[in-house]
């Protein structure tokens, strides 16, 4: 047994039992962050804060929400919105955060792609981040079912139908997922469970893994510089902070991080109070009706790019293209054959690949929103082909990239 002495303070008492000083040193004051980074490196903290907002607003919504096909719609649109004091606030925070979290995730992802932050020992950061993206997508979809409006119902119908696998015609699997022939009580209940318990648990676990994956390779920097973290940390601890290339996570970096978070929160609450409607589809204010499809079914903006990859093809080809789009980002660290972990601007052809991919995904997003007719059909089709083509080209253009 360890040797305990009479505590001199509450801090000392806790320290003897929980080693809080060591914990603080390892996790905060001696966790090193490079100096040469910009505001894009604050997106991780912005995401963590947004997740906290989702969690807290979700707890309050959970107290009045009824996961029952007859009651769900009114529990959201009447009870929470009109009866519960400040219920509207939790709903609008939850809805806006669910939408904005994807904007930040995409910025976070493309920052990683631009600066090569998925290579040279940082592969696990990328892979755990992609798992988080999948978990957040599932969380967004399951949450979208809960108000049980027309878009909830029909999105549930269309997305679960994807599991029939086109010509495989696996209707049994689809009915198994739904627990019924069509989305009904069993479906609403199980997606409620997934949304409030299973997927959030998975997300919290994955966030821990994502942070853990950062520990050994450390955060990348905007110059692609390979930093000797031990040597630089020694300089910092010796008092030579000016010449050290690193700073402590707490308080040095955190103060800058929270500055960006502060600006973000002003933008976030501006949306919550004045423009929450962008996250609320008007069609979903009609109660679910299994005998009437809305004129246009489209997902929320953050799924439009992959939806547009599904849409222009026949069922089977579309499904294969869609499945490809869903998993291909996982393969990025392995398809990029170049040893250079530097910003895209210094990587020759990869620079063009990066901007082409970004623009193509914006085009796909825009085309996914408009009805699939005429010109838009054609643009969507070629943008989908471009997406697939870019991924096929990636190993070749990076293989012949000059070493910098």
């Amino acid at each position, binding site marked *: 047994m360890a040797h305990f002495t009479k505590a001199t303070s509450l801090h000392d008492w806790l320290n003897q039992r929980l080693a809080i000083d060591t914990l603080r040193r390892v996790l905060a004051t001696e966790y090193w962050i490079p100096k040469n980074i910009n505001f894009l490196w604050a997106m991780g903290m912005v995401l963590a804060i947004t997740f906290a907002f989702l969690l807290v607003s979700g707890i309050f919504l959970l107290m009045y929400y009824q996961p029952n096909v007859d009651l769900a719609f009114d529990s959201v649109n009447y009870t929470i919105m009109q009866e519960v004091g400040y219920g509207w606030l939790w709903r609008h925070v939850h809805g806006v955060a669910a939408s904005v979290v994807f904007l930040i995730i995409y910025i976070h992802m493309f920052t990683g792609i631009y600066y090569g932050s998925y290579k040279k020992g940082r592969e696990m950061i990328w892979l755990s981040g992609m798992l988080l993206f999948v978990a957040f997508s599932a969380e967004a979809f399951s949450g979208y079912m809960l108000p049980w409006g027309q878009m909830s119902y*029909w999105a549930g*119908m*269309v997305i679960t*139908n*994807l599991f029939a696998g*086109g*010509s495989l*015609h696996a209707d049994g699997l689809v*009915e*198994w*997922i*739904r*627990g*019924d*022939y*069509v989305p*009904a009580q*069993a479906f609403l209940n*199980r997606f409620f469970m997934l949304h409030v318990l299973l997927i959030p648990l998975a997300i919290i676990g994955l966030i821990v893994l994502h942070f853990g994956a950062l520990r050994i390779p450390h955060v990348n920097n905007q110059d692609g510089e390979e930093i000797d973290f031990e040597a630089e940390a020694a300089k910092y601890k010796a008092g030579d902070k000016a010449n050290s290339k690193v700073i402590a996570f707490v308080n040095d970096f955190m103060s800058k991080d929270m500055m960006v978070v502060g600006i973000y929160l002003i933008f976030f609450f501006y949306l919550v109070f004045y423009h929450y409607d962008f996250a609320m589809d008007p069609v979903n204010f009609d109660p679910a009706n*299994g*005998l*009437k*499809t809305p*004129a*246009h*079914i489209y997902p929320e903006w953050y799924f439009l790019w992959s939806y547009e990859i599904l*849409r222009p*093809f*026949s*069922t*089977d080809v*579309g499904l294969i293209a869609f499945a490809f789009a869903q998993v291909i980002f996982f393969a990025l660290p392995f398809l990029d054959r170049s040893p250079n972990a530097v910003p895209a601007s210094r990587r020759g052809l990869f620079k063009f690949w990066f901007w082409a991919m970004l623009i193509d995904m914006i085009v796909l997003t825009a085309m996914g929103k408009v*009805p*699939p*007719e005429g010109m838009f*059909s054609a643009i969507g089709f070629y943008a989908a082909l471009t997406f697939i083509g870019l991924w096929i080209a990636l190993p070749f253009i990076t293989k012949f990239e000059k070493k910098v």
Partner: protein
Amino acid sequence: MKNNSRRGFMGKAFGAVAGVGAVASLYAMKRSWDPLPSVKAAGFTVLDMSAYKENELVTEKWRGKPIFVLKQTAEMVKKAKENPKDIERLIKIGNDYFLVALGLCTHLGCIPGYNPDDKSFLCACHGGLYDFTGEVTKAPPPRGLDIPPFKIDGNKLVLGEEGPEYKKMLETGITLKA
């Protein structure tokens, strides 16, 4: 050494027990997600076929899904007879021909709308088109509208029971099992 092999044995024995337990619990979990018997036993729908008007789409409900019933005009029947695949999709009751089909697009399950002037179904989700016999005329739908299991009972049609006419449609590949 003796200890090590004993521990090894205990490890393997635990692994075996845990493995059986894991498979058994996975089975229980799978079964808990199955549709309930009450859902499976959802009743049969009986349609009185004498009540429908020509070229007027009526949407009935069977197992929570919409069922299109479209009584064909003489002109439509004549046109359908030009192509054996088309006429086989229709159900003959007395002297009348009906399209009775699942009103869900075979692409991703949206409900197509009927245009009585064009005599065609348009799925607004992804732009698929069907003619008045439920056959596809424009992709992405991979096949015509599915026909629910039915049994002809005089002037009535029982949905959910498989009559000889339905079984023949399955055999000839006119429809898939819905």
